[in-house]
């Protein structure tokens, strides 16, 4: 059986491994391997990064193990391994020194490999609603509980203007009331 599953991004929710960052922070990136070629031009940026920035990176992030793996005439690659067992491979062919730094920063701050996934919500909350989820009974008119169905009064459309008959009837009633009041005054 064939599926189109590979065509779609896997939907995911934002999660934090064991409340990371509450109280203490554990860097989820455990190991990073920079693979590069010593001669080839496509590795130039990564070589520059190693020459100028890598020591700073390693000093600043003592919790991340950094390996360097020179290999002849093959493209430059960053391999990241996370605490949850994920590993992520970033191809940095012809990337500049700044781009490598940005990739490494991304890998360092991520909680795992999120490639091929789509976030269903850009936020997360442990308490989605204080008043509780909606049900068909919330905001329901309690008078409906006692109504008999089918009900002519509940079937009538709302916001209807008065008919001529009703208006005439009202006028007539007003007239009669005023007549009664006048006659009582006379007495």
């Amino acid at each position, binding site marked *: 059986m064939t599926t189109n599953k590979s065509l779609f991004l896997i939907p995911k929710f934002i999660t934090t491994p064991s409340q990371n960052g509450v109280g203490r922070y554990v860097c989820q990136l455990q190991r990073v391997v920079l693979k590069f070629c010593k001669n080839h031009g496509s590795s130039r940026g990564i070589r520059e990064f190693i020459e100028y920035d890598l020591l700073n990176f390693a000093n600043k992030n003592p919790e991340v193990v950094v390996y360097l793996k020179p290999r002849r005439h093959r493209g430059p690659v960053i391999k990241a391994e996370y605490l949850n067992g994920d590993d992520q491979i970033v191809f940095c062919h012809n990337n500049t020194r700044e781009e490598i730094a940005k990739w490494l920063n991304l890998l360092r701050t991520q909680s795992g490999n999120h490639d091929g996934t789509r976030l269903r919500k850009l936020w997360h909350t442990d308490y989605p609603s204080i008043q509780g989820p909606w049900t068909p009974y919330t905001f329901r008119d309690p008078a409906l509980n006692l109504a008999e169905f089918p009900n002519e009064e509940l079937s009538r459309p709302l916001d209807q203007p008065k008919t001529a008959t009703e208006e005439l*009837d009202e006028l007539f009633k007003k007239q009669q009331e005023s007549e009664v009041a006048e006659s009582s005054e006379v007495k």
Partner: protein
Amino acid sequence: MSVLKRVQQWATFARIWHVYDATWQNPFQSAELLKKYLMGIHKPIYHPMNDCGDHVIVINSLDIALPGNEWAKRVYFHHTGYPGGATWTLAWELHRKDPTMILKKAVYNSMDGNLQRRYTMERLHIFPDGNVPPELMGNVSNQIRQIRPMPKRLDHYTKEEVEKFPKIIDYPKDYILR
């Protein structure tokens, strides 16, 4: 899932039964109204992939009112699939054969033709008159308001009300009352 959460889920997705009186109502406008209840579009939890549609009981479908001269002009097409199997039925003919059919087709045609449509139609119960089985009527907990008001006919007023109604003019002396 805890017991409380399970009950919460049942409450949120509970199916409500509505009743709608089709007397003197345009079936095509009614269909647009009823479709919202059948598909659950009126609920804040609506999503095309969740199954939150309600049941709707329509009564008095015999008394629907088609606009203009549509009783004579509207044609329902059917083809049996065999050569020469095409039939064209006028609205009044169809209504005479089955008084629920026009409303049913109106609701069916108002919805998009996807896989869910047949299942949504299962939740629509149409009755030509007010005789609904009590086991269905017992489920009803809401009435859908009509789109047009039903005017009261003269013979529906009591004799007292008619006599009490204020007289606006005096008939001329030579006016012949039939």
